[in-house]
């Protein structure tokens, strides 16, 4: 049996499975499930250029963050400089590979992948081109969204810093500010990606 795509405006609530009609949204409006309150849809004012530009920014920020010092610990005349990848190395050295992998994935790899995915999704669309991989990339992007924990990472850094200020002086490096910025930029990029508009554009480009 075939699947028939119905009107966009009839949707199921993902949380409570209520079928309801989705009115046409004016940019700036949000639609919620009438039963359980789940946000069904949102219409954003801007197009796909915003998430794209934010994704580019995030990418540049990442490049800077990976090549600049992250935190420097100073005790007397001894300096210990760390980069974003230092945690991985240190944990791996201590035979804590699973933790090292977990930390790297959630704080570095997946957010970076998010950025790259966004770029790969939105750049072609900007030029009117909808490559084949879009579906897979979009699926992966969506699955991984939950696991991109740059914000949690930043909070962890703050807690660690406060814990250490008694012991020694910790000097923040450029990479730290990059992480802070990335936190906001990535979140903004994700939120600014309007699902419906994306797929509409995709379909248009596929024609």
């Amino acid at each position: 049996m075939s699947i028939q795509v119905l009107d966009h405006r009839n949707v199921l609530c993902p949380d409570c499975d209520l079928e309801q009609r989705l009115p046409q949204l004016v940019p700036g409006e949000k639609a919620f499930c009438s039963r359980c309150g789940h946000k069904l849809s949102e219409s954003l004012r801007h197009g796909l250029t915003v998430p794209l530009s934010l994704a580019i920014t995030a990418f540049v920020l990442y490049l800077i963050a990976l090549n600049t010092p992250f935190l420097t610990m100073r005790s007397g005349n001894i300096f210990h400089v760390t980069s974003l990848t230092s945690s991985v190395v240190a944990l791996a050295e201590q035979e804590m590979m699973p933790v090292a992998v977990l930390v790297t994935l959630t704080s570095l790899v997946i957010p970076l992948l998010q950025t790259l995915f966004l770029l790969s999704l939105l750049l072609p669309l900007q030029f009117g081109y909808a490559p084949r991989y879009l579906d897979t990339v979009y699926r992966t992007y969506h699955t991984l969204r939950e696991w991109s924990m740059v914000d949690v990472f930043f909070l962890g850094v703050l807690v660690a810093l406060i814990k250490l200020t008694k012991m020694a002086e910790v000097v923040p490096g450029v990479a730290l500010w990059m992480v802070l910025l990335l936190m906001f930029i990535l979140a903004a990029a994700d939120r600014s990606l309007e699902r419906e508009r994306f797929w509409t554009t995709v379909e248009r480009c596929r024609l």
Partner: protein
Amino acid sequence: MSEDSGSTPDYPAAEVRRKSRFSLVWIVPIIAVFVGVLMAVQAIVTKGPLVTITFSTATGLIAGKTEVRYKDVMVGLIETIHLSDDLSTVIVEARMDSSIKPYLLNTTQFWIETARISAGEISGLGTLFSGAFIAMDPGNGKEARSTFKGRNSPPVVTTGLSGRLFTLEAENLGSITVRTPVYYRQIKVGEVVSYQLRDDGKGVSAQIFINTPYEKFVKTSSRFWNVSGFDLKLDAKGVQINTESLTSIFYGGIAFETPVGFETESVAEAGTLFPLFRNYEKSKEERFYNRDYYFAHFPHSIRGLEPGASVEFLGFKVGEVVDMKLELDVDQVQFLTPVLFYVEPERVNVRGGNMVNGKELMETMVERGLRVQLKSVNLLTGQLYIDLVFDKTAAKKEISYDLSHPLLPTISSDVEALTSSVRTILDGLKKVEFERLGADLETSLSLLNSNLKKTDQLFANLNSQTTPQLGEALQDLRTTMDAVRISLGPESDLNHDARVALSEISEASRSIRLLMNYLSVHPEALLRGKDQSE
């Protein structure tokens, strides 16, 4: 689950509005890119030079982490460490800050700073916590370089360390080593920088560095001596231990002072050469570098001359006797007693003009009549020394260079003159005819005896034959007395002779006394006789 019946009308497709104006949001990535490029460019532009340093080992060095520091400030970072092709050295490449580029010169030194103990000093403890680092010192060179050979240990003298270098010379190294402290009034004012064997192998020389502000205490007349270990003196006063410092016991030490002396004190210039004496006592003696060795052949016994005996000139010690031998000259069937001695020409303080060449001076003096002579130090012991004297009457002689050292002409020492005055006394005493004196006395006494006997007889006869005999007797007595008076009286020859002898004896004793007085002042008069000018 209801189906939505009826197709919904086609809504007009959402308008595709290509935004003609450039969305402001693009500013964000533009800024980001701009900043990123700026940072990248800055990193490349400020990238400092890469230097290559070779070390014998890479202990404590980690690529990407170990720093290069100058005055403990980070000026570079090690990028790579690898072995040389022949596995003999470690090649370290370090990226230096561009700010340090002008200081990478041909005199720049690099060494690995780790915790170390040397010469009583512990240094580099901080590296136990921070890890080793490479330290550098630029030096005052003028040429830029980028390849260096790393040192194994830190240099003692580094740039910026102000002070002065001097050189000390000694026969042996003793317990002197690098970083041995140099003391002035028991305060450490410097240390030994390096040492090496002298080129001619006849001693060692050590370079010392005296720190500011103490270098002005090193004067041209300063004396340096070794204060390593400690001095233990055991004498009538008890035990005395002297040491400069605990450090000097283990690491050796050198001390110096500037004794008050003839010369006005002037600060020594850098590089001045000083002798290093073995201990304090020796430093009080004069010590000179150059020794001119000479031979002398004496035609008579040299009994009483021993190695170490002084060689004197004009009353000053100018050298010492080294050795002597008994030689047979087979050709001439002659026995010789060559004596080897040395003269230290520097003992002569030169006034005006340059330093003299000892050997040239000797030639000139020999031409003028300088000869080598043996003289007695002490009449009783018979100990001899060498005196260099001018003999104006001497025949012209030259220095012979046949032997390994120049052979100086000698004049014989007049041993007879030694006893001449004594002989005079003895001669005087001989004139006194003690035998005749004795014989006359005996005659006189026997006369007296017989006369006394006669007197007895006289008195016996007196009893019998009286006065004419008494008169005769008295007459005889008077005659006897006259005879005695003549022989023993004040005008008698005997008396006269005796008086003359006595006066001669007293004269002789006086002259002996004078002689002794004179000899005590001018002992050489024994050989030379009294100085004519007196």
